[in-house]
């Protein structure tokens, strides 16, 4: 359409978009973190890897549930698909975990496609949608638990290799390479988040989350972009499954598909800030070390907690309390609250 002519001077300059800043921060993060293993002792490095793993999972959850507005309570489904694809191919077929990761990514995305088309075609929203995701993860768990194909409840141990190998993604337990792989995947996750949001598809997904009727009235095929968002998220989650398997060398149905894994994908994003790029990372940094802090505390408890010596579960109790407090006090999460404060100045 023709625009009426207007004096160019009257137009304000367009505000800068945040993407290049986000990309810059991502690059700085990568560069700053690369030398980290040299500074950390093995125990601290294990914590760092867990933080990165949490971050990848939660970045993934945040894409679907934060930016896409599709509340997933069953993200373990995608995680488990990644872990199990890798484990099955490696143990049963002797295939490299890198290829296993790629296969896992594809299967997880296809699984998300089926789930998304079903759930969205029947217009499930809110709690109903969340329950469907939970049901799908549970079905996978029950199936894996009773299926000879994937070794039933026993799960898989990754066979130990005599020497370190990039091809088999296997190194000495305290090798910095695990850290580098985890870091690489997290950076990849951040790039996926940022570039997806910047893209036409991501913008449509945001619009559809905000108001699907208004989006459809503009010609946006809402279901298609919501499903696409789910597929991107699922693909990223599957890589976390591979990483977990290769680092801890073991997977079983409860670990892979159980709701604890889904919850670990949710918590960092909620605590750091849902629907923000950096929320999941910040949340992971807060939550990741908790397990070790509480474990240390319980190994040598102060006198008044003597009766808890050697017990587990304190870390998750703290997670739960944090979750409740954050929702009640900072519903936008740590990063969301900070950002609001800065922008008000």
């Amino acid at each position, binding site marked *: 359409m023709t625009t009426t002519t207007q004096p160019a001077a009257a137009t304000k300059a367009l505000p800068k978009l945040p993407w290049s800043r986000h990309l810059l921060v991502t690059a700085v993060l990568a560069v700053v973190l690369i030398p980290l293993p040299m500074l950390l002792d093995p125990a601290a490095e294990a914590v760092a890897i867990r933080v990165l793993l949490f971050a990848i999972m939660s970045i993934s959850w945040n894409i679907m549930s934060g930016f896409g507005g599709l509340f997933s309570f069953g993200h373990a489904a995608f995680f488990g698909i990644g872990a199990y694809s890798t484990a099955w191919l490696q143990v049963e077929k002797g295939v490299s975990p890198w290829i296993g990761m790629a296969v896992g990514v594809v299967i997880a995305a296809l699984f998300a496609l089926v789930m998304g088309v079903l759930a969205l075609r029947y217009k499930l929203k809110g709690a109903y949608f969340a329950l469907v995701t939970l049901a799908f993860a549970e079905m996978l768990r029950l199936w894996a*638990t009773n299926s000879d194909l994937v070794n039933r409840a026993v799960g898989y141990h990754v066979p130990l290799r005599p020497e370190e190998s990039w091809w088999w993604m296997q190194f000495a337990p305290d090798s910095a390479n695990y850290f580098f792989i985890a870091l690489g995947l997290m950076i990849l996750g951040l790039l996926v988040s940022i570039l997806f949001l910047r893209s036409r598809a991501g913008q449509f997904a945001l619009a559809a989350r905000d108001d699907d009727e208004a989006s459809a009235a503009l010609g946006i095929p809402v279901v298609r972009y919501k499903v696409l968002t789910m597929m991107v998220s699922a693909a990223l989650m599957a890589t976390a499954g591979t990483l977990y398997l290769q680092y801890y060398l073991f997977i079983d149905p409860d670990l892979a598909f159980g709701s604890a894994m889904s919850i670990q994908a949710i918590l960092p994003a909620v605590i750091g800030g849902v629907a923000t790029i950096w929320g999941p990372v910040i949340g992971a940094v807060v939550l990741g070390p908790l397990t070790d802090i509480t474990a240390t505390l319980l190994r040598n408890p102060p006198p008044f907690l003597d009766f808890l010596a050697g017990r587990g579960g304190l870390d998750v109790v703290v997670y739960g309390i944090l979750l409740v407090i954050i*929702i009640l006090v900072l519903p936008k999460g740590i990063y969301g609250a900070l950002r609001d404060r800065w922008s008000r100045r």
Partner: protein
Amino acid sequence: MTSQPMVADQETRTPTPSAWWARLPWLRIGIVLAAVVAAIVLAYLRSGSTVVVTQAVVTGILIGGVYGLVAMGLTLIFGVLDIVNFAHGSFLAIALFLSYYLVAGMGMHPYLALLIVLPAMFLLGALVQRFVLAGAMGKPLENQLLITLGISLVIENSLLLFFGANPRSVSLPGDQGVAILGAVAELSRILAFVGALVLAGLLFLLLRRTSLGTAIRAVAANDAGAQMVGIDTRWIYMLTFAIGTACAGAAGVLVAPLVTIEPVTGALFNIIAFVVVVLGGMGNVVGALLGGLVVGLAEQLGALLLPGQSPLLVVFIVFVLVLLLRPQGLFGRSGS
């Protein structure tokens, strides 16, 4: 201003004067019954044994009654507070451990524990609603879901922390197999079923026949309207959550002799309760009881239909089908 808001096509739950049974969806109940009968026939064809099928049906119905009781509490909370309560199962777990300590530690009779557990759970529910959930009333659904998730994490892992992960059990003195309808069932299972039905009946009478029940139903139908006619909605929210939690508590006492008592037992009941609630129609208390029976049967017959698979798999398949095809529930009043 002259603009008129479009009325969203929501199911309205206004109490209407006609008798409650006249408003039950008899046609759909018929279809569900037909499906159950078909499943029984199929199970018979697969297993080839009447005894096995009869046993499955009896066991399914008995445990289904308990599922119904758990789910009634959950669905009541959803109907009145609009909260999807992920902590419901963990309240049941607390009740399990409480009865364990009353029975094993203090030598109390397993069913007498009800006298202590029921009020204790009622009180706990009231406190949790008042001090944790009240702050999130009217917030987006996700927030409430996350809060109750947080509560369940705290409860389950506190149990783990204090009592450890080793499984425990409660035994009913004089518990033995009883022949019933051509099958054999433990006495404790039959009593759990009877107890669940009695409590469900009491809850139903409370909702239908008392002024408190009328107030609760009024708030469920329309909180703003209820407030206008002088009902203290905050009080009703608290009482409803307390009643719902007490339902989970009662179910916990009743099933204590039937299950292994571990912190994670609650999570299993939680998931089943959600399935039942969706089947019965979210917020539909009578539907929850019927849904409980359907899930109990699906679980038991499913084990026969898909041998080697977890019985729960069939339950989830039914669940997903219902969610997709009839999210307002099998027994909900017609929505569209």
